[in-house]
């Protein structure tokens, strides 16, 4: 367990200090839009008014790993940029780095123990009152009851692998930051910031973790699909818009296989299928897309919940993919996003393995 230090600074002062001490030249974080019209992830520079920066705001307009991937997929920055990421976003970024869609050189990863986010639908942000109750639940290390379903059942809410980890649960977001520095990069920043005094005790979170685990089991039970009928029912309203795949940090392919020429059929293909079935629901391959997508990205699914947020017909995509992903990950004993050095299951093969899968 890394030591936790009291920084004596709130998050805005902390950010300012990082710029002043030339530790970073840019910062990625959730930020208020002008006139407080909304929240979006932004890349901030030195001249920005950091009071408008809200790294802990409980909404995920986009998985920040996508933003960081778009920032670094061509080159890494020549001067350090710090990025605030929720633990699931951090895991997604690690996965994207493994598949060469992001670079971590010159990036400082800042994460925090996450209490979940609210669904972001219909452009509605949480109300003042909701936010107050959310802050309260952080202080009490409890689960807020209106956050997203996947967040309620998220047991990986600790920032593993971050250069700087901020402990919020049990303390609240307005207190001075409690920081721990796990990596070499993090430790050098600790030195530059001069943070060595006043260690603090970690909060007790055993109860929270076990509550989350229980929620997860319940979630899996509620969204479990046990036969073909149930599968068809769940995706019955799907309009094949592919929004789930577009906002998925793991679905990085520029040309998705399911939108490729492979699935643009000739009229004869339609004729043959129609002949066999007499009735053909269109577009074809609707369920196939979801199953196929799960098989492509399930081993890396970090259960960030973006796919459910954007679904225009409210299909609980992320709840199902979380369960499906976890099953796949269990087969290979793989934890997506936990460790940069852990190879992805579908790029490493061994002669003697998985015999139980053979007939």
């Amino acid at each position: 367990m890394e030591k936790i230090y009291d920084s004596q600074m709130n998050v805005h002062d902390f950010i300012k200090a990082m710029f002043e001490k030339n530790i970073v030249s840019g910062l990625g974080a959730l930020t208020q839009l002008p006139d407080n019209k909304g929240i979006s992830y932004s890349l901030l520079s030195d001249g920005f008014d950091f009071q408008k920066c809200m790294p802990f705001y409980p909404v995920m307009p986009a998985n920040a790993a996508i933003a960081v991937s778009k920032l670094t997929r061509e080159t890494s920055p020549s001067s350090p940029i710090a990025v605030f990421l929720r633990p699931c976003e951090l895991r997604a970024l690690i996965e994207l780095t493994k598949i060469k869609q992001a670079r971590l050189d010159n990036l400082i990863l800042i994460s925090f123990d996450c209490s979940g986010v609210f669904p972001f639908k219909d452009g509605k942000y949480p109300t003042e009152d909701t936010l107050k109750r959310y802050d309260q639940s952080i202080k009490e290390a409890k689960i807020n009851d209106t956050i997203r379903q996947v967040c309620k059942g998220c047991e990986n809410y600790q920032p593993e692998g971050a250069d700087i980890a901020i402990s919020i649960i049990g303390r609240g977001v307005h207190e001075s930051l409690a920081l721990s520095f796990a990596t070499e990069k993090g430790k050098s920043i600790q030195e530059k910031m001069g943070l060595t005094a006043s260690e603090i005790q970690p909060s007790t979170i055993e109860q929270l973790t076990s509550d989350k685990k229980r929620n997860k089991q319940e979630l899996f039970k509620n969204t479990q699909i046990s036969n073909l009928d149930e599968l068809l029912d769940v995706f019955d309203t799907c309009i094949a818009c592919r929004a789930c795949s577009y906002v998925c940090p793991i679905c990085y392919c520029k040309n998705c296989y399911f939108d490729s020429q492979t699935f643009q059929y000739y009229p004869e293909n339609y004729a043959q299928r129609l002949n066999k079935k007499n009735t053909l629901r269109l577009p074809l391959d609707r369920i196939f897309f979801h199953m196929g997508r799960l098989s492509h990205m399930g081993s890396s699914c970090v259960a960030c919940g973006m796919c459910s947020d954007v679904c225009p017909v409210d299909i609980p995509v992320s709840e199902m993919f979380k369960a499906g992903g976890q099953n796949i990950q269990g087969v290979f004993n793989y934890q997506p996003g936990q460790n940069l050095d852990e190879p992805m299951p579908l790029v490493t093969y061994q002669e003697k393995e998985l015999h139980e899968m053979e007939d």
Partner: protein
Amino acid sequence: MSDEKEFIPNIVYGLCAWCGTGGSETAAAHHLKYPENIKPFRVMCTGALDPVYILRALIEGADGFIVSGCHPGDCHYDSGNYRARRRIAALKSILNTLGLDSDRVWLRWVGHGEGQRLVDTAFEFNEHIKKLGPNPLKSRRDS
């Protein structure tokens, strides 16, 4: 002398490879100068200049964008300049509808030999943008 900091606009000048650029060559041969804050941007044909480039410039830092290519009937590719005119007409209509200063985009034909006309155009557009002031879009961080 006024203490106010003079507004020097950031202007992109899209020139086609045949007439527009040719005009600037002629201007150079005659030792004509145009304002230094105008940045020439060469494209093979004005018809190849997707208005998205103009939008990108206006969103990311330009105060104005001006396009010059061959006079109607002179296009090296026959009808590229007509295509450009249609596209720019559509673009200006969009900017106009949304209240985004469609006047920050100009289209004016300049032939290969018309060095004076190119320089005149550059000065005129520069003055015009100075009067309009900075482009509000370029400093918006929520774009």
